[in-house]
């Protein structure tokens, strides 16, 4: 089943008790950022927030925390809201395997209702606000940015749909952060080498599947729209932008069309990031906006990010695990069991695997570092045995505390690439990386005393069932 658009998903959240309407008037600052931070502090089953009255605006509505909990993530996939996390992982992985699902093209879209090309003022059109106290300005932080491969513009899969932080820096100007490891940086480089501007189209207020897929580290030539079709189980609806051949999500609330100006860089940030630190004070590209389209009375969407966990950690949790899992399985199809790369977008990853022989787990760790996502993340990779659930952190801690010998099992590889936002990288973008092998030594490695693992008493499973029934009465 697919959600028609952003509003359709909000309606589902409301029906499921996963949306909280806030009808009291709030101040743009500090209320919006504070409330969105606060809701993440209240656990992992929290609702989305819909602010219906914002000081200074006649009828602006802002939704936040839309995918900010495991129930909301389950509903994004059309699953019951109480679906356990590990089940959501395997269901996501199953659907990911259905890629590609061809798209459904439409001629018109609801966002074409209102169009602005003269005297564009983004500060008037969008209800913008400061999210964290030391942000250098007002950001659009949950929009999908579409661009295409300049040298192969007709290749549908090389068209990129990604989420990048966008600082509103003028009435018709945005700053954009294209991290070198992300696909839009490839397009920008191609355009700038030709001395050409890079055309972009930006969609705000989307149903949650394209948002999730846009935040998923797909391979360069994999289409986000064809993956969104796989995740939602039916063709994804797209429509052409007006000024370019770029494809946009049909259900978007607001669309901005423009171009990244070749060769220009301008002071940007700082912006509080998913690493729990501010990043900025660098010069980054700018986008000139030429056209704005939106629905009448659009609903705007922003996401809070900061010290984990916040909405962004739910939004790029399982969708970071699954590509790593699939790519590791391509190399080791019979061994890889599961991957948990939910920590800081996979800066830390935990892999559960069978070990064929001594040294195998370290090879699995090395392979994780060389996956496309690993090139910018996977600063620490923990490898555990097949019977350790990587989503169960007490089990992972048990493996680390009992299976690891620092002399043999801690491998440090110097000066590898990482995304420059990693506050520990020095220079920004370079770091040592570490593999911690917390698997049981396998022959010909015979060290340690692991021949007598403790097994559960004989009738444990039976008793688990009996006790579960009694507790549920």
């Amino acid at each position, binding site marked *: 089943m697919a959600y028609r658009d952003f509003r359709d998903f909000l309606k589902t959240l409301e029906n499921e008790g996963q949306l909280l309407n806030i009808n009291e008037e709030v101040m743009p600052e500090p209320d919006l950022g504070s409330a969105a931070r606060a809701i993440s502090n209240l656990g992992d089953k929290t609702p989305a927030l819909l602010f219906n009255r914002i000081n200074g605006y*006649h009828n602006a509505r802002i939704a936040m925390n839309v995918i900010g909990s495991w129930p909301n993530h389950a509903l994004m996939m059309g699953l019951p809201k109480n679906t356990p996390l590990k089940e959501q992982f395997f269901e996501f992985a199953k659907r990911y395997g259905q890629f590609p699902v061809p798209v459904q093209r439409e001629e018109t879209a609801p966002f074409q209702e209102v169009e602005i090309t003269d005297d564009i003022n983004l500060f008037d059109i969008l209800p913008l606000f*400061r999210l964290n106290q*030391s942000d250098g*300005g007002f950001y659009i932080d949950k929009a999908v940015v579409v661009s295409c491969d300049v040298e192969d513009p007709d290749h549908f899969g090389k068209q990129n749909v990604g989420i990048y932080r966008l600082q509103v*820096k003028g009435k018709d100007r945005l700053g954009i952060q294209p991290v070198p490891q992300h696909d839009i940086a490839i397009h920008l480089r191609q355009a700038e080498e030709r001395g050409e501007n890079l055309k972009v189209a930006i969609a705000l207020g989307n149903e949650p599947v394209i948002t999730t897929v846009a935040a998923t580290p797909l391979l360069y030539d994999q289409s986000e729209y064809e993956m969104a079709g796989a995740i939602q189980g039916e063709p994804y609806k797209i429509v052409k932008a007006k000024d370019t051949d770029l494809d946009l999500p049909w259900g978007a609330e607001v669309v901005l069309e423009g171009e990244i100006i070749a060769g220009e860089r301008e002071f940007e940030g700082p912006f509080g990031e998913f690493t729990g630190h501010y990043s900025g004070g660098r010069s980054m590209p700018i986008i000139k906006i030429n056209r704005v389209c939106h629905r009448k009375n659009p609903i705007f969407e922003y996401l809070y990010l900061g010290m984990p966990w916040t909405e962004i950690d739910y939004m790029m949790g399982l969708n970071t695990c699954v590509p790593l899992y699939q790519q590791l399985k391509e190399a080791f199809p019979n061994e890889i069991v599961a991957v948990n790369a939910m920590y800081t977008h996979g800066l830390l990853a935990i892999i559960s695997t069978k070990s064929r022989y001594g040294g195998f787990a370290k090879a699995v760790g090395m392979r994780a570092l060389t996956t496309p996502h690993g090139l910018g993340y996977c600063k620490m990779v923990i490898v555990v045995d097949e019977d350790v659930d990587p989503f169960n952190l007490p089990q992972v801690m048990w493996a680390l505390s009992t299976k690891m010998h620092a002399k043999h099992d801690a491998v440090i590889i110097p000066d590898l690439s990482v995304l420059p936002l990693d506050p520990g990288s020095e220079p920004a973008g370079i770091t040592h990386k570490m593999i911690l092998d917390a698997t049981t030594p396998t022959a010909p490695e015979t060290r340690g005393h692991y021949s007598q693992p403790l097994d559960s008493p004989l009738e444990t499973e039976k008793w688990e069932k009996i006790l579960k029934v009694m507790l549920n009465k």
Partner: protein
Amino acid sequence: MKTCPRCESKKTETVSQSPVKGAWEVYLCPVCMFTWRSSEPESITNPEKYNKAFKVDPQDIPHAAKVPPVPEKRA
């Protein structure tokens, strides 16, 4: 004319006024690109109370690292 709370430039401009008249205005500094709303707390709007760790010296701006670097144009 407002002073930029972050870099203390005097060149700031008003970029927006609240749709409901009189609630607030939004200002932009064209030097350090800082943006703020008149209704924000003093720790944001007052140059003297702005968090020192996040102040910007306009002289540092031209030296900021370019991310990503601008590539050479191909012949």
